[in-house]
Every structure is written in C-alpha cells, then in structure tokens.
C-alpha cells in the first residue's frame, strides 16, 4: 500500500514536471531583456543617487550631506531617486478560443499569451514590482515564489468559449495587463476597462491573434464552429465571406483601440507567427514608458 504523502509527492512532481518547460521558456525569454533603469525619474524614496540640491529651510540637519558640503561653503542635501514598488495585475484569457492554432508550426494563442505574460511577470518581479492576478485568487506579491504560483495559475484551462476579462478586486492606481484575443463579447471588455478607469488603474490591452484569423483563407462550403463547439455558422461559399469578416475584425480592433484611448490604456496586437521576443519587448516598453510618464 502506498502511503498518502508518497502519492501526494508523486502527483506534485507530476504537476511540477509540466511547469518547468513553461517557466524555463519564460525565463529564457525574459533573460533576453536587459533591465534598464526603471526609477521614477524624480526625487523621492530610494537607494540610487538622484541629485544634490542646496539645503533649504525646513531640511533637517540630518539630511545634509557633509561630504559634498565640505567642498565649499554651501550646504547640500543629497536626494535619492524615488523608487517604489508598483502592483501589476495580470489577466490571461483561459477560454477555449485561445487554444487555437491554424497549423502545427504555430503555437496556440493561449500558449503564446501565457509565455508572454509569465516572462513579463518574471521581468517585473526582478525589477522589484509586485505582480498578481486580477480577481481575488492571487493578490500581487513579490519574490520568485510568486512566479511559480503565477505559472501554476496560467496553466489552468477554462471550458467556456470566450471568457470575460476578470475585473474584480482591482487595486486602485495599480497597473494591469489584459491578454486575450478579444473575439468574445466586447461589452465585457468595455465593462472591465470602465471599471479600471474608475479606479485609476492603467494598463495594456494585448490582443493575440492567429494569422489565419487575420487572413481568413477558407473556401467552399464550410461549417465554422467555435473551439468549445457552442457557436456555429454555416456558409456555402466561405470565400465570399472573407471581405465582410475582415471588415468586422477591423471594426473590432478599432473599437478596442477606442476603448483604450478613452480609458487611458494602451492597445497592441500580437500575431502568433511573430517571435515572442518582439511581443515581450513591446509589453516591457509599454509598462516602462507608462511609468516614466507618470
């Protein structure tokens, strides 16, 4: 008879055996990004030197930098750059529609989304930020253990076709990253963004699409089904639908862009046939750039 702890450890190891590839790939991807200076570019609390400024009335004597002041008659105060940990909340679409890839050569959209998000999380955690999921399941924390937990959460899969963005329990003035194909009902995205804007949360809408969803390379009599099989549409001539489908897709993108500009978010589109590196770089710059503007 096998004892319970042994079984537990065995199943834990089996679970963990699935994690390392994603983690390792994410780490490998993150390793390619050099961490630049990501201070707030203003004086405040922090470790790095920012500037010397003449002492003013109101500065306590303890704040005077004697080494600098001894070089002349004026007294200087040494200011440090303001460094503060931000909370970044992530949401990755776990819906069935994300588990689509048009050919074997391309990764599933979900796979790419997880990889990008996890790599971003690793970068952020290395930069000292707190990272968590939207919703209540995993509040933002720092430390490498959080990466493991994130990886675990990302590995889950939901059954419903299009899952709405999770917008509960958003921390005010935090940052958020939503990654999805946004092919489902756009009202969910609107609600989520409105709520985020209400709370002063800014962030990124990151749309991940398969190239075949952009090209619609289908001909002939076809029954289209969603990944979960709940939605279907039959056509006699798929080729004729192409232009109208493409215009609807463009409409959807424009709508998302519009939503973002209203809410002060950033929007970008990623295709699974492009390298993950470019996607990660954009995400990283987008977060970084947003911070420098603040």
């Amino acid at each position, binding site marked *: 008879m096998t004892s319970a702890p042994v079984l537990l450890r065995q199943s834990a190891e089996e679970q963990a055996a*699935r994690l390392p590839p994603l983690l390792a790939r994410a780490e490998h991807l993150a390793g390619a990004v050099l961490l630049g200076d990501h201070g707030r570019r203003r004086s405040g609390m922090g470790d790095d030197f920012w500037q010397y400024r003449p002492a003013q009335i109101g500065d306590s004597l303890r704040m005077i930098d004697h080494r600098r002041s001894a070089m002349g008659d004026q007294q200087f105060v040494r200011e440090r750059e303001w460094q503060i940990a931000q909370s970044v909340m992530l949401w990755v679409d776990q819906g069935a529609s994300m588990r689509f890839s048009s050919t074997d050569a391309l990764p599933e959209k979900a796979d790419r989304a997880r990889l990008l998000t996890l790599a971003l999380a690793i970068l952020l955690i290395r930069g000292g930020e707190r990272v968590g999921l939207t919703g209540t399941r995993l509040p933002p924390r720092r430390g490498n253990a959080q990466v493991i937990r994130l990886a675990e959460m990302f590995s889950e899969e939901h059954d419903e076709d299009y899952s709405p963005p999770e917008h509960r329990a958003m921390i005010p003035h935090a940052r958020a990253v939503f990654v999805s194909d946004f092919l489902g009902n756009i009202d969910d995205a609107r609600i989520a963004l409105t709520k985020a804007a209400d709370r002063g949360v800014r962030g990124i809408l990151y749309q991940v699409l398969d190239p075949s969803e952009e090209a619609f390379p289908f001909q002939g009599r076809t029954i*289209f089904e969603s990944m979960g099989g709940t939605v279907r549409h*039959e056509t006699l*001539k798929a080729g004729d639908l192409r232009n109208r489908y493409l215009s609807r897709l463009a409409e*959807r993108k424009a709508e998302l862009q519009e939503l973002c500009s209203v809410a002060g978010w950033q929007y970008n589109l990623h295709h699974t046939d492009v390298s993950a590196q470019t996607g990660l770089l954009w995400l990283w710059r987008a977060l970084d750039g947003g911070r420098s503007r603040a």
Partner: protein
Amino acid sequence: MTTIAGIGFTAPWLLLGLILLPVLWLILRAIPPSPIRRRFPGVALLLGLMDDESVTDRTPWWLLLLRVLAVAGMIVGLAGPVLNPQLDETAGDGPLLMVVDGSWAGAAGWAGTRDALEAELYRAAANNRPTAILQLSAPEPLVMQAAGTLRSSLPGFVPRPWQPAPDQVDVSIAAMEDLGGFDTIWFSDGLEYPGRDRVLETIETAGNVRVIQSGSAVLGIRPARYEDGIVQLTSLRQTGGPEREITVNAEGLDPAGNARTLASLQMRFEAGATVSNAELALPAELRARVSRFEILGHRSAGATTLVDDSLRRREVALIAAREGREGLELLSPLHYLEQALEPTADLLRGALNDVLPANPDVIVLADVATLSDSESASITEWIESGGLLLRFAGPRVAASDVSRQDEDTLMPVRLRSGGRSVGGAMSWGQPKTLAPFSDGSPFFGLDVPQDVTITAQVMAQPDPTLADRVIASLSDGTPLVTRKKIGQGQVVLFHVTANAEWSSLPLSGLFVEMMERLAVSSANPETAAEDLEGTTWTPNNVMDGFGTLEDAGALPSVPGPELLTGAPGPDLRPGIYQSGDRLMARNVVGMSTALTPIAWPDRIPVSGLTVAEEMPLGGFFLGLAIALLLIDIIASLALSNRLTGPQRNVAAGLIAALFLIPTPPNAQQTQDPEDFAVTAAAEVVLAHVLTGNRDVDGIAQAGLTGLSDTLFFRTSVEPATPIGVDLEADELAFFPILYWPITQDQQRPSDAAYAKLNEYLRSGGLIVFDTRDADMSGLGASSPNGRKLQQLAAPLDIPALEPIPSDHVLTRTFYLLQEFPGRHRGRDVWVEAAPPGAEQVEGMPFRNLNDGVTPVIIGGNDWASAWAVTGNGAPLLPVGRGFGGERQREMAYRFGVNLIMHVLTGNYKSDQVHVPALLDRLGQ
C-alpha cells in the same frame, strides 16, 4: 477481336459506355461537395453574415476531368484492349510444325529466336494446336504434342556449330512425311545450305508456310593466316548492306595464365561488300599466345576462328659441327634445313650454350658427335621439359665413339661403327630407296617418291628396343629415322646427313613434309588433304554453336583428310584437334567458305524476328483508373483542406506508394555526408560514439540531450540536438566533444577509424571515456569494462594521465567543483597530466597548468545516465536516494556544464583567475 486504331478489343461493345461520359460530367458538376467542419475562434464575428448567392462552389473542372478519365479508363479496361493483336493468316487449329534451322548462323540472335519461338508456342497453346518442333541441324523423330509442354523443353534448344547437312535434311524430310498435313512456321537463320529447297518443298505440300527470319546480318570470320610477318584476317557477311564496322578481338592466355583480350582490330565492310580484309601486326610473343579470333558482340561459332600452330612460328636452333666454309654453301650441313624451314620457322644460330637459354622448340644437331657433359646435361633437361632434339648423322658421327657400347642418352639407338655405304663407286649394289611408312610412324600416309635414294648411312645396332624406335626405314629394312622419347620430349636421329652428300632425301619434297610431321615446322594453312593422309586426329576441345570451347570428352577421332575437307557436322565438330605433337584447328568457316543469303520464293511470307508480342492492356487501364481514383481522393481531401497534420503525411505516403517512389531512407545511415556536415557544423553539437548497444546508445543520446538542455537554460551555450557518431563512416572534426561509453561487446574500430580519432585528438578534440562501472570498481583493468577500455584506447595517441588535481581548470570553468559525480560517485577521474615543471607559485591559488584542453577524460561515473532526460524534460533514471540523489544529479549537471565550458573555452578561466594576483603584483 475487333481492331480500333491498332488496338484490338475483346469486348468492343463495352466501349459504347464512353457515350455516357458527358452525362456523368453534368451530374458530377451539379452535386456540391460536402461541407467541411472547421474549428475557428473567429466564428463569433461571422454570426449573422448571410451568403450572397445560394449556389455552392462547384467542383473544379480538373477534378471532374480526373473522375471522368477514371471512369473512361475503367470502361476501356473492361473492353479488353490488346496491343499488337496478331491477326494471322496461317492461324488455324490444325497441327503446327515449327522448323528451326538451329545452325551457328542463328547463334548470335538465338535469344530473339527463342523468344519468337516461345511467343508462337504461346499462341499455339492458346489455340489448342498440337505442335512439334524440328531442329534441322539435329533432327529427332517428330511427335505432335500440346504446345504448353513443348515450352518447357525450349531451353534445351541450342544452335549447333554446323549447318543442316544433306543427310540431316533427309532424316528431317522423312520425319515430316510421316506427319501428314500441318502448317509450318520456319525460323530461319538466313543462311543458305544445300537441301533447303527440298525441305521447303516438303512442307509446302503439307500446308501453309510462314518464315520468320532475323534481319540482322550473319557474320563469319575465316581462319587467320600468317603472311610476311603479319596476321591476315578476313570477315564475311551474307548480304551486302550499308557500311558497317566490326571489332575483332584476339583472345588468348596472358603469361599468368588468365584468359584475356590480347589485341583488338577494327574491320570495315564497305557498303554493299560482303568481304572485309584486315591486317594485324603482332609481336611474336603475343602472336604465339593467340588462341582464337572472334567478332565482338556476335557470339556464334562462325564468328569465331580458332588458331592452331599456324600462327605460332617454331623456333629452331641449327647447330653444325663445322661452320663458315665459304664458297661451299651447297655442302653446308645446314643449307637444306634452312631452305626447308625458313618459310615456316624462326631460325636461331649460335653456340649451343647461347641458344639453350632462348628455349627453342627444336634443336637441330647436324653431324655433331660429342657434347660436353654440361652441354649434355642441359640438353637432357631441355628435352625432358618438351624439347625436340633432331640429329643428323654424318662423317663425324660415323667416326666417333658416341653410342657405341652403351646407348647415349641423346641418341635414340646404339650405332655400329663406321656405317655403310651402298651403291657408291667403291661398293656393290644399288642405292637404297625408302620403304613405305608403317602404321605407327608419324610419317604414315606420306607418299614415298621413288627418286629418293640413300647412298650412305650410319647403322643401328640391333637391340630389343630398336623395332619400337624406327619410324622410317629403307627398302631393305635398315632403320633410316629412329626416335626415342625422353620425358615430355624426344630425340630423333636421321641416319643420313642433312645435306645431299649421303642421300637425295634433303633435295626432295618429302624432306619438308617429314619436317612438318615432326612438328619441326608448322603446318601451312593451305595444307592439302593428301598431306594428312594416314593421320588420325583426336579432338581436344570442340566449339558449341555460340563459339564457346568445351572439353571434347570421348568424341571419336577423325582421319586427317576428312578433318580438312569434310563439312562440319555431329561427326566433325569444329574445334582443336591433336595428332602427336601437332595441333590443328577446324573452324566452321574455312578459307573458301562463302556465306550465301537465302532467296525465299515470293509466295512465302517472311517476317522479322522482332515480332511485337501480343500485350493485353486491360490490367493497365484498370490500374490507371484505380490510380486516378486514388488521386481523386487525395485531391478532394486537399481541396476541402482536410489534409492537415499527420493525414497529410498519410496522403503523401499514399501518393508515394501509388507511384512506387521509394521513400527516402532513414537518416543517419544513408545520409549524404554533406548534409551530415551541415547539420553537425551549423551549431554546437554534442556527440556520442555509437557502441552498437541500443540501450547504451539511447542513454547516451538522452544524457547529452539533458546536458544540452541544461547548457541552454543556464549558459550562453545553446547546443542543437546531440548526434550519435559512427566512427567508421562519419567525419569527427565538427564535434567539440565525443562521449564514449564503454561496453564489453563493442566492436574494435578499424585502423582507418583510429587514424581519424588520432587526428581528432591532435586537432583539439576531447573524448570522454566512461566505463560506467564506478559503482563496482575503481578505474583500471580490474573490471571488464576497464579492460575493454584499455584495449580500445591502446592505439590512440593519449598523453600521460593523472587523476584530476584539485587545481585543474575543470574545477572552475563555470561552477566551482571538487568532485565529479555521475550516476555513481566514483573518486577517480583522469585527465592529461600536468607538465612536470608545474609548481605552485607563492601567493597563487593554483598552478599554471597545461595550455590546451585535455584530450581525454576517463572516468566511470556513468554521467550520461545522470544527465539523461525523457522527451518532456523529466529525469530518465533515478540517481541516489531522495533529495540527496537530486543533489548528486545537480552536481552531475554542473560537471557537465564545466566540461563543455572547458572544451569550448580551454584554459580561459585559468587566466581569468590569475587577474587578482597579477593586479596585486602590479601594485594596484
């Protein structure tokens, strides 16, 4: 059978089905293809979109065409098409006789004849006609039987090396007359022979006649002649055709005894000419070796001519007692011999000791009495190996004591002293004439001219052996020529002089003929039949119809004149015949043979040999239809985009199987060396030596995969998939490291492979030997694997080794390590020994060791097992126990990383760690 456009149909009415094809086209056009189910997340955007037209996509025209063609193929196939339908007037259902000439003239095209024969038999069998085959050159009693049974006896029909002889024609006609009425197909060789008209007459009275005759020319070659130092060759063909060039090869044995082509000669028939002459100049040595001439690419007995002694000029050494008496040429003992032999033999002159090393065929001693002991010994030796010593008597022999009391070795008989002289001025009696030659004599059959008289001779002592040794005698019975065999050779003594002093024999033609019979001179090609009168010739080798020589076996002997003049037949087979020491070739085509084409009467239909065979095409059309349908399946799937993933491979496989395209063989073994080089050199690749043990090789591969992954994740080294290396076949230069697990049953690499390995070691490669047995024993010859390692590594160029010192660069190339565990935690890992002068400098953490990468690392810790991972990256084999084991595995990986870093960066880390000490010295 109905014929349409040259193709016959067994069921032509089925072709009416082709009319339905346009209807089928319309029907197929009207039916839409079935819908495809397709998973597509973007369907949410499609909802509510309506189709503009209600008409569906049509099947593309080419797919329609494919299907219609398939149906058409099926209809045509079922209609039973037959290519080259044979519509024959002589077709009937009566008995059928197949007459085959079967002479040498048909040998060159015999395969074609036999195929045509088989095709006709096939048809006869299909029509249930009783059939018989008659080979005119070897007639046998005729029995009509089922054609099918005759087919099995076809391989027994071979062409004979002769043409049907008149008596064979008679036998054949008699056999045919017994049969009654029948139709005839005559497979003719195209060469006229006496009696053919009579055969044609007989079969025409019996029924219909059809002749099948090859259109190609019959070639023949006449016996080679030797004139004026040049070999003359003449080729014949039976009809003058366009200009044609043929190659004649001279075949023979080379000095090593192997059959080979000694010379080759181009001959040209002018347009319309039937005879072609050519000359071939050959050195005497080569000429003597030629055993046959044959026309290249024309295997028949007529296109082969055997060569006997006629091309071979015998070497005759002439030695006389007295030389150079000027002005007395007619008295010279050698004059008449020279005159007789000059045309047909090469004469050698000189002292006996100078001549013997040239190994002449014949040595003539004219009136030489005494020989020194050494001369006598060497001549005896020469005779025993086949030489012919021809001695002539004379005054010196008569006066000497040679062979008086005891028989001299080099004399056939004992001689009385003095000799005798008859019919001279001082003696009584008439000069003696020659008696007719007796039966056992080589001269038997030669005419004895009456004007040959003997006036003096030396006399033989009566002895018991004398009678056996006499081969020619005088009319009074006294021996004139005696002979004695010694070993393989013989001594012949003419009891008269070689000049005309004692007899008129040298003046007569008989003298020349006697020389010829004794094989002193070679036979002339124009040897007359009379010259061979009385001789009997046994066949040595005979030719078959294809011109191939075979052993004669127990074939009967042939009388000489018959050999020359008789027509070849079962009793006189062409070949090499022997009589005594003489060889004579009997060829199919003689000096005067002419090749005459057959002139068939106009009423006889003559067709070529290359009859197009009847070929049923039904299977072909049906197969084509099925193939088209298979293509249709794949094309339909491809059109509806259902060919994805593995299905596409299946489809490709189907197509490949359909067209019998050999699938590309599995990589590695038959890989193009260039592809291998590109794969191996494009990226850093770890390699392991294939041991032939699948388990070990698999673990080595998995281990290197695990190590590659570790390197990929932890360092900037990003290796590609590891490669198993076959030491014999693969180039090693591309690999920075070879991991070599030792197994006991491993093959020892070849010397070439060791040369490659040494080259690899010298040019900076690193081999890691892993005996994989550190759990059982330390390193050394104490374990079987250790002994195997010693055996394998002995031919390698390996420097002195030592256990890894604690300051070796391997301990710090990436991680800081002090032990190197694998799956086992053995102590000893050996590397190249430090140079003897290496000493630790005060203040330095380690010695300044050797400058390069150690060429070998030898250990037994079974590292590959510790590194090995499964396909999804989980460890393959357990290491140690619990978490301690995982720690050991981690250490194994760290050793692996250090190892690869050491290979790729050499002693870089050694230098880098010097930096603080150097800076310290510089006073910073």
